[in-house]
Each structure stands twice: as structure tokens, then as C-alpha cells.
């Protein structure tokens, strides 16, 4: 049963990530990948909350949040941006890394 819940959470997380990308693409035409940035930060924040609460269950953390956020697209964007603007790619990587960690801290402090 746990596998089914993780699959359902994963499907929902991936779908929300896609919907956010669609919405963001309507107003944002900058080279900065805001859609991935937004889902990764929001997911990290909620992950910090889930961790402080002692897990909301694997359907939410492993399934939904795991699928809402993505590492492979983040890396692909970093590589493609670097081909055009190296400084923007470095900025994207560092800001994602630092604010991802900060978001976990904020989420954790909200509960803990």
C-alpha cells in the first residue's frame, strides 16, 4: 500500500511541477529558470516542515515533495545556461544550493 501512496504522491508532485512551469512560461521570458527554482525552493521549505513534524508519511515526503522538486532538470539547465552565460549558471547553482538549504531551515523552524 505504501508503494501505491508514493506513486500517487509522485504523480501529483510531477503534475504540479509541470503546471507551475506552464504558468511561469506565460510571464517569464528571462534566461533564469524560475520554474525549477520556485518548485525546488517550495519543496525544500515543505521538506523542512515535514522533517520537523517527524515526517508526514512517505506519500508526502518521498512521493509528492521528491517529485515536485527535481535535480536532473536543475543540472541540465545549469549546463545549457553555461553555454551562453557562464556567470548566470554559476549564480543559478549557488543561489539554488544556498536558498534550498535556507528554505529547509525556515520550514524546520516553522514547526520545530
Amino acid at each position, binding site marked *: 500500500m505504501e*508503494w501505491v501512496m*508514493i*506513486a*500517487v*504522491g*509522485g*504523480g*501529483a*508532485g*510531477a*503534475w504540479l*511541477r*509541470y503546471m507551475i*512551469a506552464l504558468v511561469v512560461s506565460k510571464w517569464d521570458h528571462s534566461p533564469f529558470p524560475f520554474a525549477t527554482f520556485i518548485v*525546488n525552493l517550495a*519543496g*525544500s521549505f*515543505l*521538506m*523542512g516542515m*515535514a*522533517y520537523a513534524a517527524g*515526517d508526514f508519511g*512517505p506519500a508526502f*515526503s*518521498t*512521493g509528492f*515533495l*521528491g*517529485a*515536485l*522538486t*527535481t*535535480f*536532473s*532538470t*536543475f*543540472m*541540465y539547465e*545549469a*549546463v545549457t545556461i553555461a553555454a551562453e552565460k557562464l556567470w548566470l549558471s554559476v549564480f543559478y*547553482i549557488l543561489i*539554488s*544550493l544556498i536558498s*534550498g*538549504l535556507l*528554505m*529547509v*531551515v525556515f520550514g*524546520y523552524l516553522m514547526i520545530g
Partner: protein
Amino acid sequence: MQLKNSLAIVSGGALGATLRAMIGTGLNGVPVSTFLVNVTGSIILGFFYQFVQSNHRISGTLKKFIATGILGSFTTFSTYSLDLFVYVREGQFFVAFLYGIGSILLGIIGILLGMTIARKMRRNPAWNG
């Protein structure tokens, strides 16, 4: 069209998250598996995006199923951030640094490696049928 894409992404996402859970990530997971999942997923995504660039028979919906759905959900950023937080909280700053920078360096190398493999395959006549 939008419904078809949504269905592709939901089913791909369910598959990707389940695969990741089987390898063993999550709140109480071992960070090594998150690291492996993220690097492996990056290699496959780099390969796939380069491969579809030269293969126009792959539909947009199939691309979304594999790239946005399966690989997007198979790899994860939230668990990665959480792992970093747990290391920092435990005072394991060096491990946090290695894990943080190492995932990104190998993720970038993974994307480039995947793209290179796809390019080499394209040049090899045996793969072009």
C-alpha cells in the same frame, strides 16, 4: 493535448518516484542513494535531451513522459537540501560540503557525459540503422 500531456507526466512522475523509493531515499533514507539517484538521473536526462534533438520521431508527449515525468521525479532536490541541513545540524560540515558540491559537480559531469554518449551513438553508423 493538454490532457494527454498531463496524463503522461502524472504516470511518469508516479513511476519515477516509485523507482527512487525502491532505491531507498526519503526522510530516513541514506544520502548515498539520493546522490546516486541524482547523478544517474542527470546522465540519463543529458543523454535523452541530446538524443531527441536528432530524433524527430519522438513525440512531445513521450518527451514529457520521460524527461519531465520519470526523470524529473526520479531525481530530487528537496531531499538533497534536507540531507545538507541534517549534516550541518549534526556539525558534519565537511561531509555537507563534499555532498553539496560533489552532487553538483557530478550532476554537471553526468549531463555532459550523457550528451556525449548520445552524440557518439549518432555518429556510429551501427546505431542509425
